[in-house]
């Protein structure tokens, strides 16, 4: 009994010992993030946005799609904080219910575009030569068009729906990641640890997944966070132009579009969803900036000194 207990204790100690440096790293990351005011604001915005996206439909005081024609164009008031639109639907309820579509659009577009871009970029950078040439010329073709115009033409060809808009945006979005990863791959390919790995018989795939992709992780993470905001705007823009979400779906871009003819008489119909979009983009950008700073080794080193000093002083006080 005592013997097994001893083993258990030593195992627990071992686990703690292994986890400690990791916890320290995370602690430091959290510290850097916490100490940048803007990053905190960004995080708060993003978290509340995610919260709304998950629980929005349940939080909405009114049914977001039921119309009450008598209450159309009510200005913001106690019962309708953001007013009502041309069908008498509560704008706030529609915004709460619509958040999920925006976040879904962002997540799905990036979930399709990023793996494609990363894989193609990695292949281009690793193999080089004609493979690189071919893949990069294809990405050049995609990057040559303004992305929104290209996305518009794709979604017009596919037919207007939010799902097709997401497909269209994915097609437009991957080349940026391909470029990003290719650049990184070209640099990593030449390092001597890749040469060393080859000298031990590592295959190309092994080098791709063990050396190149892990080295791309932090720039991808930063770009991903910032892009989340931009994809949401782009999806909203497509909806605004009539390619994305179709009525009566409560999508923010669509709501801005619906209200734009009443801008002078009933500003609230467009302005609140518009503000919502701005806020979300801002939030993701601030968070992305914060993550970039937190992952920057130079900045980390500086803050680490401050951090440890603070810890020492607080522990000596306690």
């Amino acid at each position: 009994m005592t013997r097994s207990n001893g083993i258990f204790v030593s195992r627990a100690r071992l686990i703690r010992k292994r986890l400690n440096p990791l916890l320290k790293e995370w602690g430091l990351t959290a510290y850097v993030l916490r100490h940048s005011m803007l990053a905190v604001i960004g995080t708060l915005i993003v978290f509340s946005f995610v919260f709304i996206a998950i629980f929005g439909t349940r939080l909405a005081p009114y049914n977001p799609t039921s119309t009450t024609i008598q209450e159309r164009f009510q200005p913001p008031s106690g019962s309708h904080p953001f007013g009502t639109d041309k069908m008498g639907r509560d704008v706030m309820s529609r915004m709460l219910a619509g958040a999920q579509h925006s976040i879904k659009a962002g997540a799905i577009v990036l979930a399709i575009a990023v793996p494609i871009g990363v894989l193609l970029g990695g292949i281009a950078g690793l193999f080089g030569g004609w493979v690189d040439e071919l893949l990069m010329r294809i990405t050049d073709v995609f990057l040559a068009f303004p992305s929104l115009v290209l996305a518009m033409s794709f979604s017009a060809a596919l037919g207007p729906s939010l799902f097709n808009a997401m497909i269209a945006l994915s097609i437009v979005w991957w080349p940026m990641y391909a470029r990003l990863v290719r650049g990184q791959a070209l640099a990593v390919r030449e390092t001597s640890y890749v040469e060393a790995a080859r000298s031990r018989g590592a295959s190309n795939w092994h080098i791709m997944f063990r050396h190149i992709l892990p080295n791309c992780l932090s720039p991808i993470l930063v770009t991903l966070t910032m892009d989340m905001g931009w994809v949401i705007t782009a999806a909203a823009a497509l909806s605004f132009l009539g390619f994305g979400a179709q009525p009566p779906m409560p999508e923010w871009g669509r709501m801005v579009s619906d209200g734009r003819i009443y801008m002078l008489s009933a500003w609230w119909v467009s302005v609140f969803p518009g503000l919502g979009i701005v806020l979300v983009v801002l939030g993701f950008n601030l968070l992305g900036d914060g993550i970039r700073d937190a992952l920057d080794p130079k900045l980390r080193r500086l803050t680490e000194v401050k951090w440890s000093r603070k810890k020492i002083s607080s522990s000596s006080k306690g």
Partner: protein
Amino acid sequence: MESKENLLVVEGLKTQFFTYGGVVEALDGVDFEVRRGETFGLVGESGCGKSVTATSILGLVAKPGRVIEGRILLNDEDLLQMSSKAMNRIRGSKMAMIFQDPTSSLNPLFRVGYQVAEPYIYHQSRRKRRALHDAMRMLEKTGLPDAEEKTKNYPHELSGGMRQRTMIAMALTCEPELLIADEPTTNLDVTIERQILDLVADLKRDFSASVLWITHDMAIVAQLCDRVGVMYAGNIVEKTDVRSLFRNPKHPYTVRLLRAIPSSVSTAEELEEIPGSVPRLIHPPTGCRFHPRCDHAMEICSQIKPVAREIEPGHLVACHLYNEGGETDGGGVV
């Protein structure tokens, strides 16, 4: 020569780099062999093609470069005829390399133990846990203090000597028959260098491997090697056992090279040097590539490339001074 004796035979190896400035003839017909269980030293100035020889053997010559002709036989199998898949299997399991700079040769993102364990996982398909354990044992064998703890460290947390031990452990994981060491002690201080040299000598014996040791340091050659090839501008100019290299050097380049070693007992005021510098290999000198810097240059030297001749048993020299026709000075270089 019986192939049983020779582990690695390199014959007429020519590697060239096709750059924008022209074709760089980095290796111009390199011949040597590494016998089983011996340490063969490859010495020469920087830029003479030592490292290119190593990468050519491994089949890892960087992009504008290509092996033009020659044969590289490892256990009688020509590596140059092999598919890249077959080469991947041989690299790491049959031959492995220790690199110059252990700092940049370790991926900063992964723990040391895992990096050492990788060849076990990929070449011998051991399970991860088992591989990590074996990696730890291997690190212990290379004399890494506190190996069990160190396996969980990242490369930047280790000192230069520890990193080089890690590199050696990585190279030895699958017990290769041929270990290629490309100046593995250049970035280390002399005490650590000494330890690493002893370590490689010990491990060579334990694993009954052969070592191809690439260096510019004659002291290392004297300590470590059984036989030596002296390289100059992409050629092996002299090849012999280590004893006769130091006692009885034949090629004018070798002679000058040995004279250029600083000595603690020598009373000479100034260190001797070899006049001139290593030729650019885009337009290498015609004939013998050493002739512009050679004290004994004759007319024939600029016209005909000398062929390596066995002037004593096991002692090969590529110099016109030792040809029957060209023996004007009676071979009296020394």
